[in-house]
């Protein structure tokens, strides 16, 4: 009988670098979009009330954009751009395949919650055998290394 294959779970440093790459992409896109919208609003001289509403909508749009980014990639290929660069995937713990959209949304909520108290939600990655953090527990996922070439 052949020995069972070993699955390498991705560690905290690798995941942190991937998250930084994703954050960079999200912020650059948001910054460019925000700058364009801000310039237009400035040129139009809108009232303060409308300006406040536009800012609130912009904040909400930013949140939706960030959530959509993660949810789309986790639920389709299991790899965000950062994960593609660092070569790992987010998969469901039981089926080992990309997760569904609701679970991806749930995982994104876990990601936000993990970051709020000094990234405490990610610390368990250091101490658990399968390197799982709060987002993984909430969405029942694991993060595993892949050998997929970038190009």
């Amino acid at each position, binding site marked *: 009988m052949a020995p*069972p*294959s*070993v*699955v*390498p*779970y*991705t*560690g*905290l*440093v*690798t995941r942190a*670098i991937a998250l930084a790459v994703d954050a960079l992409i999200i912020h650059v896109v948001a910054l460019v979009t925000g700058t364009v919208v801000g310039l237009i609003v400035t040129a139009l001289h809108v009232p303060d009330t409308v300006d406040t509403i536009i800012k609130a909508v912009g904040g909400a749009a930013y949140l939706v954009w960030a959530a959509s980014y993660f949810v789309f990639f986790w639920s389709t290929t299991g790899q965000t751009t950062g994960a593609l*660069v*660092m*070569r790992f995937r987010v998969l469901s*713990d*039981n089926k*080992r395949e990309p997760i569904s959209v609701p679970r991806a949304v749930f995982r994104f909520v876990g990601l936000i919650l993990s970051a709020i108290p000094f990234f405490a939600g990610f610390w368990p990655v*250091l*101490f658990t*055998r*399968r*390197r799982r953090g709060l987002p993984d527990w909430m969405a029942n996922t*694991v993060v595993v*290394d892949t050998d997929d070439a*970038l*190009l």
Partner: protein
Amino acid sequence: MGLADTATDLAVSVTREAMRPARALDRRFRPSAQRAALDALDRVLDSPVTAIAVDRILQSPLVERAITGVVAGPLVDAVADVLIRDAVIERVSAEVVRAGVAERVVEGLVADGVVERSLTGVLADPRVEALVLTTLESDRVEVLVGAVADSPGMERMVARVLESKLLDVGVRQLLASEELWEMIDEIASSKAVTDAIAHQTMGLADEVADEVRIRSRRMDDWLDRATRRATRRRGQPGPGQDLPGGASPA
């Protein structure tokens, strides 16, 4: 002193005395004779008859035969022997190089556009192209080029060319030419070059990403070992490793 010696002295004295009037005449008339001879030569040289005569001589088969005879004879070999034995060519070359004659000549030719016109004419000739191709395909040429390229003389010559003003002048002329920049633009915008740059850039990005991946995973393993030591976790699988399907090892 013998009788013979006395006779000899007497003969010398007599001869000296006999030549005295001749020497006096020579001193008196030599300058005017020389002037007369030069005047006569000038008149001969200025004469149209002389020019016609010289032309006829030069056009005659006699001159041709004479030159052919000289070229075919031992004189050429003797001259060549002398040139080689006394290193005449080397001495002249060294003097020409030292005096900067070659550089001045080349600068003048380049400035007058002679070099450019000549090169354009030569390069446009299809026979030159055929000759170059035939030559390049020759095995002997390859051997010769290798030997020349590896020779110390070539190294010295290249060093001298690099140090000379000739290269600076050539480079300045080249950089000032509009055709060069048009050619560079054409090459830079060609598909082959852009593809190569894109490939190289992506290869570089991939290399950087590979390095980051390797280092991050090394750091992960180090953190794992450190936390295991800190929490005294023992007898468990290696860092971050498990069986697929969520199963844990027994």
